[in-house]
């Protein structure tokens, strides 16, 4: 695994050879219907895919933040309403579990034989998705504030806490730290990031049994609590929009945010030039003496529905590959950390690349991980508020998860 990762990632972000571009779309006929999240990178892809329309080919796109609640129902019917779903590591799971997406090996062999391995997402030996961009949460720091407080750039969370204390002690900021710790999905993601940094596994190998009630889980929770002690007391409401706003307002100096926020933060809108110029994106810190950055790596990719004709599937695949053409990536360098050889690393992608290169682990693509995520999101707030012990919080998570996983048929 590590050899592959080092080999793949060392080149993926810089000099990966081969091309995914196809000149023109070359589609004979068929209907393409895309369901996807709504952000700049996907807007660029769907615009390019739409350019394939005409002469027997229709291309429509539904870009919405609610894509996750729509894609499975929209792909269940036969024929499916959507022929393409753009998903991430977590949201591919419900589609995989219900067999709503088809293996892409034949389509790749026919239409994109040069597709690099780094773009292939395989499950059980079959390519189920084509990944096109990477994302991860990592450290954003303010170089000027750290300098003012006289501390070095932190590379571990222990150093982040120390730096936060120094900033507070120097009277620069009372609450310099922010993570996406809003109760629910965001808080669960923070815990998983921390927990993955300990090297721990969320589940016993090969089963759906939870395995977070251990010292790694407690260490991850305690580190989160230490960090939130330096956060604004509202931290249990923080989502990506909130932490970005705090950053752009100059209220925080050490934040852990999504890499995809790097572009908007480093642009010349919404913030002061002095803040933007001293903002640096770095790898996710490690903690507890472990070497693994405490974050999870995410990819976004596209999948093709099972319940559509082969003609539509071929048209959909070709249209999406046209959407991912080199020209699209070149024209939208700032929109994402593209998994494409034409992508030039920018300061906005430095944190994601550094995290991946220092060996951060991917978010687990397991059939039942969504249930764990939900259980974590609902049961960790009380610990961070101080009204419950770490052990009790983890026991609550395990109990809630086990009940849910049993009702979903993963545990007997």
């Amino acid at each position, binding site marked *: 695994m590590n050899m592959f990762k080092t080999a793949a990632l060392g080149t993926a972000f810089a000099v990966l050879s081969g091309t995914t571009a196809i000149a023109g779309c070359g589609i004979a006929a068929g209907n393409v219907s895309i369901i996807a999240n709504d952000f700049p990178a996907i807007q660029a892809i769907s615009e390019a895919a739409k350019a394939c329309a005409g002469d027997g080919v229709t291309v429509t796109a539904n870009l919405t933040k609610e894509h996750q609640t729509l894609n499975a129902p929209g792909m269940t019917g036969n024929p499916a309403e959507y022929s393409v779903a753009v998903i991430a590591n977590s949201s591919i799971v419900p589609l995989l579990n219900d067999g709503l997406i088809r293996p892409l090996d034949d389509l790749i062999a026919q239409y994109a034989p040069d597709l690099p391995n780094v773009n292939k997402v395989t499950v059980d030996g079959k390519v189920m998705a084509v990944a096109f961009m990477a994302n991860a949460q990592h450290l954003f720091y303010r170089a000027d504030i750290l300098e003012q407080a006289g501390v070095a750039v932190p590379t571990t969370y222990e150093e982040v806490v120390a730096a936060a204390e120094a900033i507070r002690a120097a009277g620069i900021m009372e609450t310099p730290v922010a993570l996406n710790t809003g109760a629910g999905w965001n808080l669960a993601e923070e815990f998983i990031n921390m927990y993955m940094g300990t090297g721990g596994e969320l589940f016993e190998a090969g089963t759906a049994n939870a395995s977070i009630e251990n010292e790694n889980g407690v260490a991850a929770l305690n580190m989160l609590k230490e960090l939130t002690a330096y956060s604004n007391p509202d931290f249990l409401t923080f989502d990506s929009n909130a932490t970005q706003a705090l950053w752009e307002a100059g209220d925080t100096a050490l934040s852990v945010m999504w890499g995809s926020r790097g572009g908007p933060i480093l642009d010349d809108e919404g913030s002061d030039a002095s803040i933007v110029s001293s903002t640096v994106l770095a790898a996710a810190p490690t903690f507890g003496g472990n070497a693994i950055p405490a974050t999870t790596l995410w990819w976004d990719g596209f999948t093709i529905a099972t319940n559509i004709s082969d003609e539509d599937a071929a048209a959909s695949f070709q249209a999406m590959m046209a959407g991912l053409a080199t020209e699209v990536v070149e024209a939208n360098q700032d929109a994402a950390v593209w998994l494409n050889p034409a992508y030039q690393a920018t300061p906005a992608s430095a944190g994601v690349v550094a995290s991946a290169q220092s060996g951060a682990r991917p978010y687990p693509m397991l059939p039942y991980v969504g249930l764990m995520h939900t259980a974590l*999101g*609902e049961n960790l707030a009380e610990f961070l508020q101080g009204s419950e012990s770490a052990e009790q919080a983890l026991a609550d998570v395990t109990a809630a998860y086990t009940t849910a996983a049993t*009702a979903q048929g993963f545990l007997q």
Partner: protein
Amino acid sequence: MPHRTFFWFILPSALAMLLFIAFPLVSVVIQSLHIEHEQVIITTESCGPFGCTPSTAVDLEATALLKEAAPLGQWNGLGTYLSRNHLATAEVAEAWRSSTGLASFGSKLMNLPFYKALAFTMAYTAVVTPLVILLGLAVALGVNNLPKLTKGPTIFISLLPMIVTPLVGSLILYWMIDADGILGKALQWVFDDPALSLKASPLLTWLTLFTYGVWSGIPFAFVVFYAGLQGVPEETLEAAMIDGASRWERIRYVVVPYMGPLFVFVALIQLMDNFRVLEPIIGFSAQANASSLSTEIYGDLLGDNVQYASAAATSVLTVIGVAILLTPVLVRTWRDFNRKVV
């Protein structure tokens, strides 16, 4: 009306109710009694841009066979209702056995998601409903006494909280009570506490949500009561004045009795609405401090693994809860109805 005419008259709406209310309810009940099929898990390897990891996947063919054998899923009886994420009978019994006193039992009970949600839901209903009725009546009486010229604009402004979509309304207020928002800053100044945050503690979050509930509920009560006020006969009011009744006595002994059925109506609607509170908790990002039966359902349906059985069970429990809440009001209405017939 002859029975036959009544039957044909009511048939279309009865059919619609059967189709759109009764059948979905039956299907929800059936769903809540089943859980998903056993998912056949295979151990495999998954690879992506970041390398390969040992992994598991659902064996689609084997699972499809199980699904075909029992399309509804596995029969679970009341299992979902009694499980830890709902009524948690086993956990409650255990908490009762191991508790040293009521306080420790209570804290153990509040650690269970259903009871935690129920506690907030009931508190919200109990606080918001009476306040909405009282303040709605007060606003209606106030507006009723305004001169004609100012009445129109006042009514419009009073209705605004109801016109604004709940989610948007709560989001706007959420931004205003932020430590950097106009209300948040004002509160910090009033209480001379720069660290004061309405979002940080459970108590303040609850108060904020109650306030929002009252704010958004008043217009409805106001509209109903204002309409009702127009029907209060002038003669009776004048007679009461001649008898020397004060303003307060006229309201207490003439206006309020006249509007009795309207109070019942508003109470019914408000009880039902408040028991299903959802939007403010989402809008105020208050999930850390408050959960309701509806947010539990919302959470079950939102994750990457959608939990239909669990959501269905909570829905049925919500319906039962609403039915219990409404019983006193309905019994009272029924009695009044019978009395009038006699």
